[in-house]
């Protein structure tokens, strides 16, 4: 058990590597109730989120649709990352990080003060993520009153509420599956029904190696208040095509004009060893640093994210205990739907 943002959570239930493979090959589940669920309601919800988020809330036009976005500081640094779900015109749901809960809520309150909206945190909700190629059928089988059929047509990055159970086809593993928000009092029996279906509990450790293989950033590690999304592999989540005013926009425009100095890339270690966060990366264009790293159970190689100078090429070396070991810069993600992506191996 480890402390994670004030929550006591297991790194693994048994073998972390077995839990990882379970998700890639069948279905695993994670208790991610530590994540913070916040509802924004009111007539100016859209206007508020349009100003708050780096991604453009206007992209969400159909109730039940969702997207990933960063909240930025005025400096362009990343305040937090989140998924926003469009429930109805006066109700959007945000799921934000646990480690940033206090500052995130304070930020929402502060910037929400100018808008006719209300911010409500939902402590009473537990979150169970069920992920893997067999995850959806397992969840369908345990939905109350045979309501699982209603989930058959749910598209990726979409959500639906069935009998107070909120089901979103999202995740943090690179596999198909759901993230399920359910009243804490019902969560244990729901979890136990999934157990009976053969869904295996997985801990924070497998969650980390799965998201790393899937090329998904971890807030506080791969991006922080000190770097912009453009330096964090998240340019695709920033909508600057039109003249929408959002917090951090002018800083990003300045950075673009001056040239973004660094980029976040994937690294594959050529030989034996393990990549870890905080290792020095040596490139022809200067030094960089790994932000996340581990051993990839799917690829059987060490992989990492690294922030390197923008001009860095494909070849680099990583300083591991004083030895410069050769590594290759690759396009993310490393793994999708259980398989190595092209050019990774």
């Amino acid at each position, binding site marked *: 058990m480890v402390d994670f943002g004030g929550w006591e959570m297991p*790194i693994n239930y048994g073998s972390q*590597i077995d839990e990882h493979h379970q998700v890639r090959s069948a279905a695993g589940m994670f208790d991610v109730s530590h994540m913070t669920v916040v509802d924004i309601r009111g007539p100016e919800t859209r206007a508020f989120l349009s100003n708050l988020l780096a991604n453009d809330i206007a992209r969400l036009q159909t109730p039940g649709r969702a997207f990933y976005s960063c909240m930025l500081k005025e400096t362009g640094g990343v305040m937090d990352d989140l998924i926003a779900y469009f429930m109805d015109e006066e109700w959007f749901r945000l799921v934000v990080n646990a480690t940033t809960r206090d500052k995130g809520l304070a930020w929402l309150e502060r910037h929400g003060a100018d808008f006719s909206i209300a911010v409500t945190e939902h402590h009473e909700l537990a979150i169970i993520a069920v992920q893997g190629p067999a995850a959806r059928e397992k969840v369908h089988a345990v939905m109350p009153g045979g309501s699982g059929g209603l989930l058959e047509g749910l598209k990726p990055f979409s959500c639906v509420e069935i009998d107070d159970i909120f089901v979103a086809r999202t995740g943090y593993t690179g596999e198909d599956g759901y993230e399920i928000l359910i009243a804490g009092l019902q969560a244990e029996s729901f979890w136990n029904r999934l157990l009976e279906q053969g869904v295996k509990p997985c801990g924070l450790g497998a969650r980390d190696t799965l998201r790393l293989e899937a090329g998904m950033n971890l807030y506080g590690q791969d991006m922080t208040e000190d770097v912009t999304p453009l330096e964090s592999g998240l340019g695709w989540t920033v909508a600057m095509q039109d003249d929408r005013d959002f917090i951090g926009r002018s800083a990003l425009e300045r950075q673009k004009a001056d040239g973004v100095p660094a980029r976040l890339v994937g690294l594959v270690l050529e030989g034996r*060893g*393990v990549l870890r966060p905080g290792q020095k990366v040596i490139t022809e264009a200067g030094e960089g640093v790994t932000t996340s790293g581990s051993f990839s159970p799917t690829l059987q190689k060490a992989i990492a994210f690294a922030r390197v100078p923008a001009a860095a090429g494909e070849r680099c070396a990583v300083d591991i205990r004083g030895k410069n070991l050769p590594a290759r810069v690759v396009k993310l993600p490393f793994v999708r739907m259980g398989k190595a992506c092209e050019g990774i191996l």
Partner: protein
Amino acid sequence: MSEIPSELRYRESHEWVRDAGNGVAVVGISDPAQAALGDMVFVELPEPGMSYSQGEACAVVESVKAASDVYAPVSCEVIEANSALEDNPELVNTDPYGEGWLFKVQLADPAEIDGLLNSDAYAAQQDD
């Protein structure tokens, strides 16, 4: 329940030593240590011929969670490293006192082994 064989000696930092006679000993990490570290994915072993003082870092075991130093439990010269761990680091998890041994040494001072913990003392340390 962890296994802590009585015929071995232990260092507080979780290495075990098996006295093989003639001034030769085998070194590995204990069952409680491998359990705490979790799935092993890489082991960096010392080259034969390297000499270490007691307590000096001489190897690294890396689990999927973290990298941990292994300290020389006795002053020694390394005579063999367990090459099987190169392709199968998980042997440290599955058989920590057998096929998962790390390296074999020539003892600089065989009396140092007597100064290490016996299995009862090491087991008591785990209960703290």
